């Protein structure tokens, strides 16, 4: 069996946010001055835009991850179908998984590559692997992982019983040949959705290091 490719990523900056129901203090008016655009943003998009600002994102390529996607829009659509009422066009256009990253690219007028991955509880790891391979080109990348799933009825599907229904992690990274000082150990966190664990672990470890570098196994 061939050995896994190892790619080291330098963590240039990182940010994290979470809340039991709704993240506040997202600086929406400052970060999204156009009211029409601000009003259309989903919860995931607002968190993504805030985290991008926190890590100093400018026009980097974006690798976005979300396990559950646009839950509020999806719930609105499914209930419309059940009740045989007309669907909201805004709910539908906001229901795809790449919505937060797309709004971020529109807001920042960034024409670079944006991709979105979703692998349930492995989503965070998929963002890291995708980002590591793409980083081989040599540019800086924004890795984002956001899940916002606060809605009436969430207790029926929140089998992991996580207490923070909104959370997100951002890492601004670039490939390096320097030695890694962060190994991913799959540290659990009962408050946060498992879909964010690996990136949250890197965020937490980065805070303790002067020059954080994570080894990603592909």
């Amino acid at each position: 069996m061939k050995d896994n490719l190892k790619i080291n990523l330098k963590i240039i900056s990182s940010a994290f946010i979470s809340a039991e129901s709704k993240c506040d203090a997202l600086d929406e008016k400052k970060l999204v001055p156009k009211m029409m655009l601000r009003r259309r943003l989903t919860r995931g998009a607002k968190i993504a835009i805030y985290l991008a600002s926190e890590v100093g994102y400018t026009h980097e390529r974006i690798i976005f991850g979300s396990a559950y996607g646009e839950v509020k829009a999806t719930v609105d659509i499914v209930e419309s179908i059940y009740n045989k009422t007309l669907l909201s066009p805004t709910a539908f256009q906001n229901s795809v998984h790449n919505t937060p990253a797309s709004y971020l690219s529109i807001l920042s007028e960034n024409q670079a590559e944006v991709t979105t991955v979703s692998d349930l509880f492995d989503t965070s790891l998929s963002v890291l692997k995708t980002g590591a391979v793409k980083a081989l080109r040599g540019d800086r990348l924004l890795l984002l992982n956001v899940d916002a799933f606060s809605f009436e009825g969430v207790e029926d599907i929140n089998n992991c019983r996580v207490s923070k229904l909104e959370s997100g992690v951002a890492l601004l990274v670039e490939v390096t040949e320097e030695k890694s000082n962060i190994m991913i150990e799959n540290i659990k966190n009962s408050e946060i959705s498992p879909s964010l664990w690996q990136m949250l672990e890197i965020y937490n470890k980065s805070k303790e290091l002067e020059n954080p570098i994570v080894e990603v196994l592909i």
Partner: protein
Amino acid sequence: MNIKNKNINREVYIESMSACCSVGDSSEVIFEATLLGNSGVKKHQGFLNDETVSAIGKIRSSRSFDSLIIESIENILYDSKLKDFSTTFLSIGTSVGGMAWAENQFIKDGGSYKNIKLEKQSIHSIAHTIKKKFNFKDSITFSTACTSSSNAIIFAKELIEAGAYERVLVVGADSISYTTVNGFNALGVLSSEIATPFDANRTGMNVAEGIGTILLSTTPSEIKLVGVGCSSDAYNITNPHPHGEGAKLAMKNALKSANLNPNQIDYINAHGTGTIANDSAEGKAIEELFPHNPPVGSTKSITGHTLGACGAIELVISSMVLKKQIIPKNFNLKTKEIDSLNLLQKSIKNEIKFVLSNAFAFGGNNVSLIVQKVYNER
């Protein structure tokens, strides 16, 4: 060793491919349908909330969508003569995942979420289904709406070029759901007739389902994936840039990646959904970037728009164009909107070396792929 740009000269080939959609369950049958003008799009009642008729591309099979995905992968295993997929990476593209299952479960349970299982409802559900049957070394699922499987193909190429894998299986799969049929209807872009991409009198698109399965590898074959390019419109969440700026950038990036000039492209498989906005923007972008006026076509009047699967299915069709050296006609096209576009109304046999295939999505997510016909390598 400089890790940046490492191994990017590794060549990536299509070792095996398979497709299934409303017109058939093999690449040969689907390609023949494009030549004959046999559309799989039919009128259905019962999908729209207001009970009106919609024209959609539903797979005609009594079998479940999951079993068709499994069969598609079994075809690849058989064709490639691989023992198993234990050293192969699985790169999936889907825009709705298990949405159809979740809708039916929600309705069955009287509007309750209590039996909604994440592994069956989520985007990851396709991977969940496949990994129950096959043993892949690893997998990642891409979900960028209608470019999902195109982005899965880009990542597959990058993995092989990086030297991480010798083989990557790409699966693009999306099934029909009430969400997508009603959603596109809410946006006012769903046609009640078979779509007529690039026609001046077009009335919209047809939601469809399908599966495209492509085994990419370093093993030389008749078809090489030579270029990939992507871009973001950075313009609007649903509407493309009216002058196709994002589309143009994705095509330019693909040409650069393939080290080709625009005039080397022999055929463009357009995204061509049949909506007013998409076809107009894409047409303008092609017109400006390709002054040598290569043939342009859309096969969505045959297959319907298979959403997240279309990138993979249409790469299969583009590869068939190269294999057969025949460019399919634009079925159902009567009056061209952009007169200068070379939209064929009859299929033609021609010498074709390079085909560029487009896919565009919500959020202004754009991907262009280029495949090449390779002679005497197998």
